[in-house]
């Protein structure tokens, strides 16, 4: 079967690409669109390192087919900062040392941003349960939770 021609919008930019029917959105992002910020940690939707939003909904891009991105708006970690201005979440992660190796960080930032858009004033428990789908092996989550709560407070103004 020949490849399919897909038209999509990624981080505000219109894109077109070809992909195999069985390719995942994660593979398309990384291997076809050169957006390697989203990571493959497991390929089975268990670790959250591939988290992106699709039409405003948080998804594991390894569980979405590339063809499903047709006519959709995709937002990845690469679209989180505004030019040279970091998103408050990104800045707070740096301030709180909420990353060590950083491999889970893109997925966690995308997930945390989705949370705060839905619930600008989450409790610690709500943050922990929302992020339960994002595995981190380095930090023990402590500083990550602090960073998210602090960013939420700043964003509330």
């Amino acid at each position, binding site marked *: 079967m020949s490849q399919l021609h897909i038209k999509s919008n990624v981080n505000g930019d219109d894109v077109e690409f070809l992909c*195999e029917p*069985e390719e995942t959105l994660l*593979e398309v992002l*990384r*291997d076809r669109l*050169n*957006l*390697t*910020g*989203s*990571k*493959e*940690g*497991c*390929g*089975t939707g*268990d*670790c959250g*390192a591939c988290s992106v939003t699709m039409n405003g909904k948080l998804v594991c891009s390894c569980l979405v087919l590339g063809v499903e991105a047709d006519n959709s708006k995709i937002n*990845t*970690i*690469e679209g*989180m*900062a505004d030019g040279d201005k*970091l998103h408050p979440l*990104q800045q707070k*992660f*740096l*301030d*709180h*040392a909420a*990353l*060590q*190796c*950083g*491999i*889970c*960080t*893109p997925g966690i*930032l995308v997930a945390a941003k989705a949370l705060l858009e839905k619930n600008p004033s989450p409790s610690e*428990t709500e*943050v*922990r*349960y929302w*992020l*339960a*789908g*994002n*595995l*981190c*092996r*380095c*930090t*023990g*989550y*402590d*500083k*990550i*939770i*602090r960073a998210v709560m602090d960013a939420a407070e700043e964003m509330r103004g």
Partner: protein
Amino acid sequence: MSPLNNNSQARQFKVIGTRPPRPDGIEKVTGKAQYGADLNVANMLFAKILRSPHAHAKVLSIDTSAAERLDGVKAVITSKDFDRFSSGQPNNILENSIAHQKVLYDGHGVAAVAATSDLIAKSALKLIKVKYETLPHVTDVDKAMEKSAPIVNKGYVLENVPKGHSENVTSYFEFGHGDLEAGFSKAEKIVTRSFKTEATHQGYIEPNACLASMTPDGKADLWCCTQGHYNVRAVCAEIMGMETSQLKVTASEIGGGFGGKTLIYIEPIALALSLKSGQPVKLVMTRDEVFKATGPTVSSSMDVKIGMTKDGKITAGEAKLRYQGGAFPNGTVEMGAQSAFASYDLKAVKTQGWNILTNRPMQAAYRAPGAPQAIYAVESVVDELCEVLNLDPLETRLKNAAKKGTLSSYGPTFDDIGLIATLEAAKNHPHYSAPISKNQGRGLSCGFWFNFGGDTCVTLNVNFDGTIGVTEGNPDIGGSRASISQMAAEEIGIAYEKVRTIIADTNSLGHNEITDGSRVTFAVGLATIKAARAAIKEMCKRAAMIWNIDEEAVRWENGSAIPAGPNAGKFDPLTIEEIAGMSSQTGGPIAGHHEVNAEGAGVSFGVHLVDVEVDKETGSSKIIRYTVFQDAGKAIHPSYVEGQMQGGAVQGIGWALNEEYIYGDDGKLQNPGFLDYRIPVASDLPMIDPVILEIPNPGHPYGVRGVGETSIVPPLAAISNAISRATSIRFSDLPMSPPKVLKAIKDKQRGNG
């Protein structure tokens, strides 16, 4: 939280001890940072490895012809392709990656393919025909020791292994001192208990990945995620029959290692495929492959016997440790046997360790290799004795704690160590006296680990504008670039922002030992400080030339050269910017470098305190409160020291409560994925409170002790002790997953009812 400082004469630091932003931070929060799988180069191929479905089998034949004919396939290799390179293979690395005549574990590599796409490579694997003759297998450590066990791998038994065991027992160690019999006769209570721990995986979120480009003239470039790219160079060069200088290895950013990425699994395969195909080859492991074919920990079966007087003095301690680390020998049981009783001042102690081969992948370190298992067993028995004798567990640790002058259980006499200070800090912490509720238990454990030095090379360059570039060779797995920059800035007397530290490829520096053994802040820091001092010496020399005075008459202060005394002459200070700006005219660019096999690393102690609540309906355990106490010597960047303490504690929580390798009767790994190999998630945990102590290490200019590994050691027993006290049942088998705990609770209820 600022660290507790035990040394009132401590030097006043300007940059050390602060929390500046890390240099690689923005790249990592924006997705720009390049990890192992993120590099793409022109004309690149994609590789896949065919893996054995059997735990133990002879490989009778491999027919790769159909795979080779598939459109898009550019190279297919088996172990035979390596015959032409060299006969040496360091530490069985090659044979563990690609099977020779036998497959030794479920997932053992058998052949590999490089093709123009991932999809074609996967299709090609299906076309490779392998004929196996299955053999009996063994995966359990105790079963593998029995004389009747299938022999996993012949020819590895060392000369001092006592007779009477299966050939799977490859090494034997014994440590200790004193009269054990006399010691036990003095005890008023003796507890003997057997323990079992299953293998766990470091669980780094980034699967192993590399990109190799090798040409027929014997040159190669290799990009990989690793804890030690100089080690990768040395091992791969030997396997491929290359001169070391012709293999250039660049370490990518690394998505977690924890000891698991100190070994090599895929790089020689990628190099061989690249050579054969004439194109660069990218090889990325799947999560399934990571679990099956990288290096989990050993699994263990242990017996511990400890005697104590009624008032809490330990009179004798004995431990027997049986570790299995897969199909090849390893050096882990001796580390466990040495660490087991290291926290205690004992007159009579004896530990014995046996290493046993099984049909499992070659084990690798997971933070402190061998210590978590052994110390889990010892600290559980100490706690049981405290419970039975109705003694305070912390006071009892203090009563028996190793200190300066203690003859350690592994041989040397301790100098200044931080164990008593950490125990005192725990005792005085509000956590220790906080009330606990129904179905909750409080547990504590000491922890210990060695620290290493090792080969280290650092070059420090002074740019024309007075800023500094530090070039070092140790992959940053914990934020070390920040601490290294801090140490350079502190030593030279300039702002942190004026220093940039990078990790260079293997061509740019001499050999650097792997990032392991909690050695980087200690050893690379030491070398950085010495390199800085060498640059300072050169800058003073230039100032002396400019002022036309003797070199000895100049000294360095706060980032400037100044006359050493009133007799030197009246000169205004020359700043580093000024001296650097004139460096071409005064002789050339200024640099300092230091190459050393760093020795003098101390040992590291920690204490963990945890409150656990057990749900008696489900057997599920919840961590209510967790505090980590650890001696860091000197915390260069406290946030990253805290990060190590918290990260290690949470890994230990996972190990204690859920994580285990599950092998079926068929010898196959049943749970090679994050769904069924359950690591802690954010909703499982509370905040982890870190308390840093600072008992300076005299072997480092700023007092640094390594902290990266110790924090995985105490959680196992601390949590086990907490659950044991919450349920009044002694657990001796990890992990304490809900089904196991529930069964024990129900058994006890039935027994009582």
